[in-house]
């Protein structure tokens, strides 16, 4: 069959086109990656939820230090330069403190023992009310 004879000899690993193709793909992938890393979204507001209720919205454009103390819970939130963190907390394992700064919209710090969520507000990427992957 002529197709089989068309196949290049096994001595060469790549044909000319292969190298071109691989180069194009690598450059494209690299370009997209760089583009994604360089383009930053600028989140402006972080939201604090306690017990699933929105308690406070904190602007990220200016520096801010917020202390909260109620019942047995005490923690403090620090916001500056477009990022936010929980700087102190009285929860036992301090997962929220160790998570450090968050700066991308959609990211969140969750402190389970204190029932505290700090979330950076961003545009909704997914349309609401549609099926999600769990349904399958």
């Amino acid at each position, binding site marked *: 069959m002529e197709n089989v004879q068309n196949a290049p000899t096994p001595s060469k690993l790549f044909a000319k086109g292969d190298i071109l193709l691989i180069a194009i*793909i690598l450059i494209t992938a690299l370009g997209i990656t760089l583009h994604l890393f360089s383009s930053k979204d600028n989140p402006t507001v972080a939201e604090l939820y306690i017990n699933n209720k929105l308690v406070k919205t904190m602007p990220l454009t200016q520096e801010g230090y917020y202390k909260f103390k109620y019942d047995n819970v005490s923690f403090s939130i620090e916001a500056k330069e477009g990022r936010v963190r929980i700087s102190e907390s009285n929860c036992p394992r301090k997962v929220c403190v160790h998570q450090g700064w968050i700066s991308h919209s959609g990211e969140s710090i969750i402190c389970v023992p204190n029932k505290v969520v700090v979330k950076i507000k961003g545009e909704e990427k997914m349309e609401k009310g549609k099926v999600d992957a769990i349904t399958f």
Partner: protein
Amino acid sequence: MRLPSDNQNPNTDGSVRIYATSQNDSEKRIYLISLLSALAIVLQIVESMIFPPQVIWFRIGLANCISIIAIYLVGIGGAIYVVITRTVLASIFLGTFLSPPFVISFSSGIVSVLFMGIAKNVFKTFFSPIGISIIGAISHNLTQVLVVVFMLGFSLDLMKYLLPVLLIGGLLTGFITGYVAKNVINKEEIKKAFSL
């Protein structure tokens, strides 16, 4: 593998034997297509056992290897037959027939074969089977994500985050399957046995 030339033991059975004894060219083609389909089904099922179900979206694409071989041996039309048989039968054996994984693998399988076949027919020897395989793997990945996006109603925005992963992943898996396919296609025995 038994060859049509080894006439010293003509009583042996097997697809290749049937293939060799058939006189008609279109009959030979059908035998070859069914042989390749059987191989592809086995590879697909084995591969689904190697990877756990949590990483259902990641495959080396061993069955894709057979698609490339089919394109070289029976042409693009035959390769599409092989892909349809492979996806339908393998999904029936695995119990995923008409479920989302089946829809994904069916559509992306056909699209990738179309891309590979067109690339091979248009560019001839410009691409080796490795290049053809990379084209197939990447088009397979992209179709897969497009189908998922279409089925779940995500915005296409999400795709740009996946693109680098899909491209690099397709490159690696495409290279592996292409390398295997290339060595199979270039085997003297295969050339002799399956020259129509």
